[in-house]
């Protein structure tokens, strides 16, 4: 069975262009908004648009979910989460490079 284009689900890139509100992020990560604010204050998440209301990129969803998992499963505090997220991203970047060089 070969995948046919007519039946294929249209995928969209969810990244810088996807602008999320704090409400969206809070719902998608199943944590309350106060917690998203803490992530921002700790530097786990970056706000892309600060005008009247905070806005986040699609990538923030990935980071926020990772942060929530680490916090819950490893019982880390916020500073620990921030450090771990940063190191994990660096690690992913290095692995990516390594994979393409092999």
């Amino acid at each position, binding site marked *: 069975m070969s995948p046919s284009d007519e039946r294929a689900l249209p*995928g969209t890139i969810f990244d810088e262009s996807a602008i999320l509100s704090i409400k969206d992020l809070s719902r998608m990560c199943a*944590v309350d908004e106060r917690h998203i604010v803490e992530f921002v204050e700790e530097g786990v998440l970056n706000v892309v648009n600060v005008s009247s209301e905070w806005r986040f990129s699609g990538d923030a*969803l990935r980071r926020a979910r990772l942060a929530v998992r*680490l916090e819950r499963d490893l019982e880390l505090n916020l500073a620990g989460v921030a450090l771990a997220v940063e190191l994990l991203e660096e690690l992913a970047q290095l692995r990516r490079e390594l*994979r393409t060089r092999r």
Partner: protein
Amino acid sequence: MEFKDYYKVMGVARDATDAQIKQAYRKLARKYHPDVSKEKDAEERFKEVGEAYEVLKSPEKRAAYDQLGKDYRPGQDFRPPPNWDSGFEFSGAGPGDGSYSDFFDSLFGAQARAGRGRGGGAHPGRGEDHHAKVLLDLQASLNGGTRSFTLRMPEIDAEGRLVSKERTLNVQVPKGILAGQQIRLAGQGERAPGNGTPGDLYIEVEFQPDPLYRVDGRDLYLELPVSPWEASLGASVKTPTPTGIVDLKIPAGSHAGSKLRLKGRGIPATPPGDFYVVLQIALPPANDEKAKAAYAALAAALPFNPRASLGV
């Protein structure tokens, strides 16, 4: 169903204190957490550890488990006695969002499940979002196109149990997606109860190694072999690029490692990446008299010391 020895899973004694259990959990969780670990069976082990901790950290569950476990050996066939858990009260959500074993479910299933999922931002009438990761070939990003992914999805079955279900999706991969980015498939997450909106599915992408190109963010690199005279004298050579074969002008005086940039010919993201050609000098083999004579003539004509910078 096999009896599970949660003490063995956690590597603690049966009379371990709460503090010892917590310590053992933290150590094992760091070792096997799927976001952190590179162990092959990390996810499996993490679930096992999470399940064991879920039982042993709760005084009620631990007492119930101990009571029941007196007569069982690990691996032994296990049937919970009817109404075995009356008199114990369970509450609280477990770590992880993976499924627990049948063994766990038969003991604590309904009670443990009741408290899980739908945390803080619960939205009545909307299905939960699902998340997955896939390895994608670079061509899919360069040219777009349809790929089929087989994903394992947790689902709540008719009896309210969490089961893992496999499904295959044909997906139009958006052109220009980069490693680490997510593809969003609207409405492909959890079905909503009643007539609510289904959740979305997010697929995080990593690239498989490509036979030709090395990827760095949105830029692509190609190692292009050229002959010594093409590099030294300059030449126009055929080069594969993501958008087809082009004639590339090699400037005279190029050397191994010289980088040539074709602007905007990398991954077709917004903005598009660049395409870099990195020159490699390929030497013709000296395997016949003619070739040997040519090398000898070159040696005689050029006073060249490739090791001058090493001081020898």
